[in-house]
């Protein structure tokens, strides 16, 4: 991703002089540029444009300046959706990275059935988020309460999906269930990149297994942790499918992510208002991506 390597290794020859470009290269590039502009850039500009109007999506509209943005910042529902999304993303990132790292350590140690175990742990990655959310929805609303009441665990006898204070936990669990494999594979790659001699040297010097884990493994995969945390965080901010399958934003508005707020608001006729929301969400996404670039710059040697 770093631009330095791009510039130095990219040039074929005669950089700076204007060599004539063979016309066919324009033909190679043009379809992508045109379709990309029509499919993403134009809608993006239209959206930002309408965020300064009172449009409801169809019919007449007029400019209203920053009214939408001012309203957004004093709208408790919007604030709540951002707080929920960020809080949920942080919780999920932590759960996913701890679980995936421990699994990766286990899966790269001297275990039996290595291939089979790895195959199983990666399965969730290929399953549709909405469908597995429906499956978990059934488990959370029927099986968990049934087990809890037969064991006499109070507090879990009703579905946690119906509890505004606990529903987010279910969303974290299912999102983590699906996100762990991708993270796991990156950690496995990171662990396999550590030369075995390092561990041999450490054990000769008398380092125990736990010391080796904390003093060698963790520092040497730190770069992968940064990648996993940022990639995960970016994905979880867009959470939509799994929440729709579990709670659809409820109970009430307790688990409405920003994406759900935008879409449900739009379905309720708030086109311009939600476009202003989307514009702010875009700024947040850009800020996080810039953070990612500055943190991973020069680390593309992985």
């Amino acid at each position, binding site marked *: *991703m770093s631009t330095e390597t791009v510039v130095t*290794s990219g040039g*074929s020859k005669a*950089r700076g002089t204007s*060599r004539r*470009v063979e016309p*066919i*290269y*324009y033909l*190679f*590039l043009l379809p*992508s540029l045109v*379709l990309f502009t029509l*499919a*993403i850039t*134009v*809608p993006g500009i*239209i*959206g930002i444009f309408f965020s300064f109007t009172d449009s409801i999506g169809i019919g007449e509209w007029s400019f209203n300046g920053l009214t939408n943005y001012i309203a957004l910042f004093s709208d408790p529902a919007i604030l709540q959706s951002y707080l929920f999304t960020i809080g949920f993303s942080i919780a999920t990132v932590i759960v996913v990275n701890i679980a995936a790292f421990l699994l990766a350590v*286990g899966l790269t*140690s*001297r275990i039996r059935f290595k291939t089979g*175990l790895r*195959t199983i*742990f*990666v399965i*969730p*990655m*290929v*399953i549709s*988020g*909405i*469908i*597995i959310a*429906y*499956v978990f929805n*059934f*488990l959370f609303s*029927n*099986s968990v309460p*049934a087990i809890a009441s037969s064991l006499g665990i109070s507090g879990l006898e009703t579905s946690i999906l119906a509890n505004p204070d606990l529903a987010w936990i279910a969303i974290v669990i299912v999102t983590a*269930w699906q996100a762990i494999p*991708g993270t796991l*594979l*990156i950690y*496995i*790659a990171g662990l396999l990149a550590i030369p075995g001699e390092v561990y041999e040297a450490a054990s000769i010097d008398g380092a125990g297994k736990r010391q080796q884990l904390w003093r060698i493994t963790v520092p040497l995969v730190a770069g992968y942790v940064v990648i996993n945390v940022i*990639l995960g965080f970016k994905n979880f901010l*867009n959470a939509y*499918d799994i929440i729709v*399958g579990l709670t659809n934003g409820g109970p009430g508005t307790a688990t409405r992510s*920003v994406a759900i707020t935008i*879409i449900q608001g*739009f379905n309720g006729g708030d086109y311009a208002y*939600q*476009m202003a929301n*989307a514009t702010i*969400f*875009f700024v947040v996404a850009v800020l996080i991506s810039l953070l990612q670039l500055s943190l991973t710059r020069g680390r593309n040697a*992985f």
Partner: protein
Amino acid sequence: MTSQPALSTEPAVAYEAATPSELRSLREKKERVNWSGTVILILCTVTVLLPLYVTISMSLKTTEQAVDGNAFSLPAPFSFDGFVEAWNLTKFPVGAGISLLVTAGTVAATIILAAFASYAVVRNWDHRLFRYSFYYLLAAMFIPFPVVALPQIQLTGRVGLDNPFGVILLATMFQLSFSVLLFTAFLRSIPIELEESARIDGANTWQTFWRLIFPLLAPMSATVGIFAFLYAWNDFMMPSLIISDPDLQTLPVRQNLFQNQFSNNYNVAFASYLMAMAPAIIAYLFTQRWVMEGVTQGAVKG
């Protein structure tokens, strides 16, 4: 340096001095299987397999048995009625066909368009237009779908793309940035001499691309294709918002048929979930090595 031969003979001396039983224990220590780790990991697979077991066993129950809400009991008797009903209710062949069309279209379009654009960019890096185009295409990595979703819903509706083809177009464009990034990185590692020799043999740029470059890109195309496949096959948000005709929906979106609170036909619902999940899981089991390598490569590079 002189001490090295002496050092390396030391273990040999040690082996000679060791009794056979000591030798065996030495070797065992080196290849000792981490059984406790193996057992813990096998227990952890329950978290992955349990939801899948529930899906399978529920789908094979009769409606009468499924209604009792006990997710973990085995089907007694086995019944395939759920599958028959789900097949008819969701119009499975149509849904599967559309999912297949969207997925195949997205995978093919992503690979071709991204390979075209990347080739043009890398070979003309010294030209500003191509360099800027690269950054322009990359910029979409900053844009999550929810940000531009609302204008896209409107625009696709207006130009008659509120159908699977619109989804193919948009999904491809959202995959493009990442894929161009992977392809350009790979293309830069291909020595230009290889291409020059092809040109000496009389091949023009078009022929060089198809006969030399595209085959060379195959491993990266596999990675790009796997990411596009997982996205297009499993996505719920985009098709549910873009495709306006319910009869033209993809498989994941069709599952919302069973989200009516008052329907108790759990066996039908789970049979339907299973039929929607199974193709991706089976495809994964046959190609798992590529999928794991591809995802690792893509995620680490991206």
